[in-house]
């Protein structure tokens, strides 16, 4: 093998191989990077909320100028819900339940008190990703109404509104999520017949997607039963878990039924969709560069084989098999491909380290995507290209071996 290599390495053009190496490195790096970036960034759209998954949409009925005063039902009937459940894009449907009693929340800090009328809503617990901390999820709801503490999830926009709007102009301190969750509120619930319940409340989370004041479903059920036993509750909004938020059928269905979709709830889906398209385009460009570099390598090796044709023919005539004389060139290309793979993986991790730092600045809670698929793709690409190289070299050598 040593002698064979000494003989067959003649006419190897370092320039050509270096050209191939760089071109293939670029192609491979783009392919791996586009996939890895996609894997790393997708959680920023699907998991960033921390409260709701991005595959949840919120549906309401459109409020028209006439119906606002007309008394046309703005609620979803059981039939509406059943029909929605039967749609192919729907996995789960849950209703928003509104409080049928009045809610007054107040806060006192250092002798200064403030309070506001408000409302509660709830969705089934399995639509909410965070665990309800506090006593809201516990069984003894009667006791809860008699002075317990209810956990509350607020829209994140409320906090932003306070911090960047209100506090900024009034010179009040800005509040972090952590500080807010330490504050206990006094809650007064007033139901039918003037029945009142006093209890405590605490903010346990913020949602960017649910624009409502959320309490646990079990609490809501108990409170409605206790404080408004005669009210019939029909949902005004529905929360829907869908398989693919970018599914065209969703928009078509919503338009056909005259529903309204809370727009930004689809943004993550759209962003993921566009990210997918961008990643695919970049991946395709990378593959194209890889294919072109494959041709550079093939042309270079063919030229090498052509220049060494006389030697190769002599080797075949003195008893060397085609496989044996093809082997050095096959190993050469496989080695180059493996080198390209290792080099591009090293570069990938380096670049990834850089962009993950930037991503973490934007999304501190972002978890890293898996690198397994990327490494597997790189390995598969490397093996495939080496196999195609080996096959092409074998065919070229066979053409020399064939009797004229």
């Amino acid at each position, binding site marked *: 093998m040593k002698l064979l290599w000494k003989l067959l390495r003649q006419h190897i053009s370092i320039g050509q191989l270096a050209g191939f190496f760089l071109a293939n490195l670029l192609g491979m790096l783009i392919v791996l990077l586009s996939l890895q970036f996609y894997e790393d960034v997708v959680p920023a759209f699907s998991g960033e909320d921390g409260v709701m998954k991005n595959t949840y949409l919120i549906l309401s009925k459109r409020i028209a100028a006439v119906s606002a005063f007309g008394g046309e039902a703005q609620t979803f009937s059981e039939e509406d819900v059943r029909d929605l459940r039967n749609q192919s894009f729907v996995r789960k449907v849950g209703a928003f339940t509104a409080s049928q009693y009045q809610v007054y929340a107040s806060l006192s800090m250092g002798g200064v008190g403030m309070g506001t009328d408000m409302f509660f809503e709830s969705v089934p617990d399995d639509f909410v990703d965070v665990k309800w901390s506090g006593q809201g999820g516990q069984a003894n709801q009667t006791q809860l109404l008699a002075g317990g503490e209810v956990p509350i999830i607020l829209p994140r926009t409320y906090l932003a509104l306070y911090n960047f709007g209100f506090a900024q102009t009034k010179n009040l301190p800005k509040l972090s999520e952590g500080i807010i969750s330490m504050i206990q509120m006094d809650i007064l619930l007033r139901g039918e017949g003037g029945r009142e319940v006093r209890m405590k409340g605490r903010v346990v989370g913020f949602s960017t997607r649910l624009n409502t004041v959320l309490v646990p479903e079990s609490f809501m059920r108990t409170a409605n039963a206790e404080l408004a036993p005669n009210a019939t509750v029909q949902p005004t909004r529905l929360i829907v878990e869908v398989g693919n938020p970018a599914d065209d059928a969703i928009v078509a269905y919503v338009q056909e039924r005259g529903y309204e979709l809370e727009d930004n709830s689809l943004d993550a889906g759209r962003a993921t969709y566009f990210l997918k398209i961008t990643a695919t385009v970049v991946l395709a460009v990378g593959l194209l560069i890889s294919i072109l570099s494959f041709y550079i390598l093939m042309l270079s090796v063919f030229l090498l084989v052509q220049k060494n044709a006389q030697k190769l023919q002599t080797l075949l005539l*003195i*008893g060397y098999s*085609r496989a044996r004389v093809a082997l050095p060139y096959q190993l050469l290309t496989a080695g180059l491909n493996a080198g390209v793979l290792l080099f591009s993986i090293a570069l990938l991790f380096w670049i990834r380290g850089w962009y993950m730092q930037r991503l973490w600045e934007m999304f501190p809670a972002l978890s890293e995507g898996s690198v397994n698929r990327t490494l597997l793709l790189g390995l598969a690409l490397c093996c495939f290209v080496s196999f195609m190289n080996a096959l092409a070299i074998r065919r070229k050598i066979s053409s020399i071996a064939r*009797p004229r």
Partner: protein
Amino acid sequence: MNSISLHNVLPEVFVHRPDNSSDLWLQDVTFERGHLYLIEAASGTGKSSLCAYLTGYRRDYRGTISFDGRDIRKIHTYEWTGVRRRSLSLMFQELRLFSELTAWENVQIKNQLTRHKTDAELAAWFEALGIAEKRDVRIGQMSFGQQQRVALIRSLCQSFDFLLADEPVSHLDQDNSQAMGEVLMQEARRQGAGVIVTSIGHHIDLPYERVFRL
């Protein structure tokens, strides 16, 4: 392989030649294993073409060439590897040595493949043919006569039923051709092989059993 037969064989280039009278072309001829043949001819009469046909790298002839009765046109490319490695050895007229390698490496590149001879046996041949001191010299720096001796040694490091030596001593003096004849015949007899030597006049002095004129 016990026999090589030619039936009505004629190189394509000779088809339109007016006179094709010859002891080989367009005849029925059989070379038997264990015998010694000489093919004598002027330049351009098709000796090297015959060698190329027999080793399977050219097919531009009419008629049939067969090994033990099997038409060699039917031998597949991968089967030729076995034929060349075990049954038929050729010493090329143009030698086809590798100029980048030394004399020793040129022999080793074949012997490493066949593992037919020990280094000591090869060294003895280098000694017998008077090129022992040229072992580590690159082929490109050796005279054609010296190269012919290296080529002979290379063609002998394999098992064979037939040895084709295409003008093996064209550039050698009497003494050296004699030495080459001895080495060649010794190995051929040891293997019980047939030997076909071609020549354009100056040939090794050996007890040829049959002489063909092209």
